[in-house]
């Protein structure tokens, strides 16, 4: 049977099986990607709409929220306004993040230098697998150890309950140490070998090479490692909540009970009614947390871009 020209044209123009499969694969893999983006947008959208409700439907002043020192959303103050000052938690979160990063940075970078420059053999065989394992230890385990070792220790040394920013800092220090160490080690490893050789050939000692050449060249990577550790510390919830004492007061000393954004969130969200002011105020804390994690992300990007330009 002869085919009409139209039929022939149709047959020739029809996609082959392989081409159909190709389109199918492209569509499927692309939709997986779109799904992830949709999740990100949904998370930001939902948390933002809930968090902004405090200001739009409950008419809380944004400045009062950020600078107020009294957190007691179920009570009202002398002017009849609800007491939703989040400053004590914001200060608590920042204090604990900055302090643990300050303590962890020298140890982490020192260890990374040791692993890479001084004793690469022992570094690769022992230190690296151990740090990689410790990165994976669940945060509740850190919290539990904080509760059973660090808190009694600070109690016996400084008196008081032992709960507070100091204990939180100790726990976070140990928790972010493996992360920052292994990322710093990656940054040092990325410094080309001939930098070191050139420096040593010029007669520099090993320390001069480390300090003046390797560390300088690796600075963007090391900064990224530290900021990454800070982001992790800022967002950590349970380990901190277990040792900080959970008192939403302005911290006066490092050994008094305090609170962070995450600790108030974990303890509070289950005890409030959806849609109430108390609940919305907590969502505003979650929004602050989300925005801060975006800021950390931005900082890491800026460092990365600057590092590339050099």
């Amino acid at each position, binding site marked *: 049977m002869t085919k009409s020209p139209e039929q022939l044209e149709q047959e020739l123009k029809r996609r082959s099986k392989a081409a159909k499969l190709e389109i199918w694969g492209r569509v499927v893999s692309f939709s*997986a990607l779109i799904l992830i*983006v949709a999740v990100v947008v949904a998370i930001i959208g939902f948390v933002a709409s809930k968090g902004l409700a405090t200001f739009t439907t409950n008419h809380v002043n944004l400045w009062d929220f950020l600078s107020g020192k009294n957190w007691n959303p179920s009570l009202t103050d002398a002017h009849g306004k609800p007491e939703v000052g989040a400053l004590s938690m914001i200060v608590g979160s920042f204090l604990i993040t900055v302090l643990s990063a300050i303590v962890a940075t020298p140890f982490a970078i020192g260890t990374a230098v040791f692993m890479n420059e*001084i004793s690469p053999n022992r570094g690769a065989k022992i230190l690296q697998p151990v740090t990689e394992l410790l990165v994976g230890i669940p945060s509740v385990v850190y919290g539990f150890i904080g509760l059973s070792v660090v808190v009694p220790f600070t109690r016996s040394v400084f008196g008081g309950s032992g709960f507070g920013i100091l204990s939180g800092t100790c726990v976070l220090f140990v928790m972010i140490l493996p992360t920052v160490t292994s990322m710093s080690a990656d940054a040092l490893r990325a410094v080309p070998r001939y930098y070191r050789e050139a420096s040593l050939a010029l007669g520099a000692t090993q320390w001069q090479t480390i300090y003046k050449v390797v560390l300088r060249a690796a600075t963007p990577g090391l900064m990224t490692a530290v900021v990454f550790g800070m982001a992790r510390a800022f967002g950590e919830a349970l380990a901190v909540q277990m040792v900080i004492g959970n008192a939403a007061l302005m911290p006066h000393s490092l050994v008094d009970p305090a609170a962070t954004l995450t600790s108030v969130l974990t303890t509070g969200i289950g005890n409030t009614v959806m849609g109430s002011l108390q609940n919305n105020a907590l969502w505003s804390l979650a929004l602050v947390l989300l925005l801060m994690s975006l800021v950390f992300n931005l900082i890491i990007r800026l460092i990365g871009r600057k590092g590339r330009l050099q």
Partner: protein
Amino acid sequence: MNSKVQNKIAIGVLYGIAGVVVLILLALVGYILVSGLPKVSWHFLTTPAKAFLKGGGIGVQLFNSFYLLILAMLISFPIALGAAIYLYEYAKDNWVTSVVRTAIEILSSLPSVVVGLFGFLFFVVKLRLGFSILSGAFALTFFNLPLLTRSIEDSLHTIDDKQREGGLALGLSRWETVTRVILPAAVPSILTGVILSAGRVFGEAAALIYTAGQSAPALNFMDWNPFNISSPLNPMRPAETLAVHIWKINSEGIMPDAKAISSGSSAVLVIAILLFNLAARYLGKRLYKRLTSA
């Protein structure tokens, strides 16, 4: 002070720092294992928890942890695989791709408590799934997706471009090249990535306390019909995992032997993570040898 003395001092200090860090890390692992391992027994691993009495176990929690892990992996692996394939094999280097990459980075840097709260709002409240294994599995999926996507992308990156060119030169389409040539070659390192991310998911608690819930109703391990409420497979029941259990008994403290149970559970968690790590290394190497005859 001349530079040689300076050098000696500095190197000495670095030795000291590394020594202190090793001591801290060893003390940490040592403490977990020494205080926890004596509590671990077959009885401890298999009996259900008791709320007010001594001698409870972690059987239900352990089962819940594994069940949630498997469900979360089943949901997140195909999505992450698809996304990674598109990103690495198809995506052009333009602004859309960079927006998508930024979104994935943001998702990976979100605090897990925020992911958990979103899960609570969306799955537990909006979709009325309640505190359930399903809600928890979705929350874990969100937590896991960016990590898994990046690790699969890295695995695809390790495959030589010659393999792609070879596939295309043989007349295969791109999709066929990916599924028939690239993925089989990347299986060992993809598997390593999957097991390592499983370790992280296994210990996650903050994303679960408001999605999978904080209670572990008794299960009937003879009943494997997923529609019965006491069946271990029922995805709509609340399920406290091992990590959540540690947090719960330490912050509520009505159990007389909470400390012993937490140290036992911590040891179990850490050993599980250790096994995940070792398995990832071993299986990766073994599969690589098998598949490449190297």
